[in-house]
């Protein structure tokens, strides 16, 4: 479905991505793990068009997406739940969800999807009229995921959805990622929480300072010694 080839990104003099290639097959969960500053967010931002790559190709279903405007990429069915959630704090839950569906104009479908995300996150329904900025970190993360779902994406990209959350909420978020995937949405998940990510992923890639250094099925990477010592904090 999504295919990245030799992707290169420069920030001024910093060469943040140095020829990254990977693939996200339709219907799968793919995870990208790596240390701080490896270039994970940069990869997602390039795919969604917030960062302009200096080289390489980005293809969705065989069509090139590089150089497209973010709004057109979202309209093609790709969405990003960004790092740090980036919900609109001064707007209510409902307004945030409405913004998530901004590209659509099928009123009935939007209403239907709203009920669906409320079923997924009952907590959000209780807080429909609450300003998002006053919600707890966990609720804000639920809102970020729910908002992304409101565009009815084919490919949902998530940048560190577990960041700063209590273990119980993290577990819940990962359960929900599985549910979303089971319902047919392809997932590209960026995580620092390598163990949890690899456990649910069909396929994983390890990014180190702008390069992919390891890849394989999630279970295999979990068992890999290099991954275990570098990302799972287990002694050699």
């Amino acid at each position, binding site marked *: 479905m999504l295919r990245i080839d030799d992707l290169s990104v420069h920030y001024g003099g910093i060469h943040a991505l140095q020829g990254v290639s990977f693939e996200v097959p339709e219907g799968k969960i793919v995870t990208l793990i790596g240390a701080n500053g490896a270039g994970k967010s940069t990869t997602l931002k390039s795919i*969604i*068009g*917030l960062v302009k790559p200096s080289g390489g190709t980005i293809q969705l279903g065989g069509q090139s997406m590089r150089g497209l405007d*973010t*709004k057109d990429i*979202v*309209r093609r069915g790709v*969405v*990003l739940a*960004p790092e*740090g959630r*980036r*919900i*609109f*704090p*001064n*707007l209510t839950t409902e*307004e945030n969800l*409405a*913004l*998530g569906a*901004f*590209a659509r104009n099928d009123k009935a479908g939007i209403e239907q999807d709203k009920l669906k995300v409320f079923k997924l996150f009952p907590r959000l329904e209780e807080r429909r009229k609450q300003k998002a*900025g006053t919600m707890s*970190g966990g609720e*804000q993360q639920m809102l970020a995921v729910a*908002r992304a779902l409101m*565009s009815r994406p084919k490919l949902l990209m998530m940048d560190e959805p577990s960041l*700063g959350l209590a273990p119980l909420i993290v577990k819940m978020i990962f359960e929900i990622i599985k549910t979303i995937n089971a319902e047919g949405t392809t997932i590209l998940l960026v995580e620092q929480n390598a163990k949890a990510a690899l456990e649910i992923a069909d396929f994983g890639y390890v990014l180190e300072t702008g390069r992919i250094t390891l890849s394989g099925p999630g279970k295999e990477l979990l068992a890999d010694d290099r991954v275990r010592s570098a990302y799972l904090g287990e002694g050699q």
Partner: protein
Amino acid sequence: MDIATFFQQMANAMSLGSLYALIAIGYTMVYGILRLINFAHGDVFMLGAYFAFYAVTALAMPWGIAFIVAIGLTGLFGMGLERAAYRPLRDSPKISIMISAIGASFLIENVGVVLFGGRPKSFPSIPLFDTVIHFGSVSVLSVSLFIPVVTLIILAALLWIVNGTRTGLAMRAVSTDLDAARLMAIDVNKTISLTFGISSVLAGIGGIMRTMKYPQLNPLMGFMPGLKCFIAAVIGGIGNIQGAVLGGFLLGFIEIMIVAFLPELTGYRDAFAFVLLIAVLLAKPSGLLGKNQTVKV
């Protein structure tokens, strides 16, 4: 002071406050969406008045049509200004775009002097606005009643656009977080352009109404109101529409009351805006209705 003079001054204060509010909203909306102080906003106000003037005189349009045309042109001008002077600098340091705004202001004023002439022009009288209306012993110019009424209608429409429409939702999203708004598939350029259009339309309406009240036009007439309305926006809490309205009315009232009750201080009327600004900022740095920005991580 008798009661008649008091009511007369109140009417004056209401209409001056309305004008200030209309212009202050433009500063606050543009600041809200781009964090830019649009120094050329006062000049857009001036252009609104001149467009109406030429539509009525040179093109001999009936005033109603002339005003609509002038307001439309002012809105388009504001959008053009954003396109030409601000959009190319959107990713540049804030100081560059600020300097561009100051440059645009000087440019408009000076081109105005060349095209319109430096000599003041007087707007032909329109009887509907020039009638003196008597309430007992109080007599006010009809335009002083029109201005607050028109302003209220416009405020209601504006609040509806911002809080009740899809476009308004996009505007609020863009003003909170530009990149997050992009992620929502919002056309950020279009939204910013529209914000400039709306704020310029308000300035155009303000410019025309001010000319109905004081029918003298000159190319620098936007400077002082521009400055004061910027102050009004800051006093109210820049970025906040209700704040701009509050600041505008506050400034209008104080100015009129000083002239009315302390006539010996009339020479300082413009200075009071600054005194008020300093006083408010000392007490509440984010302005009267401004929020202290708190970001939850």
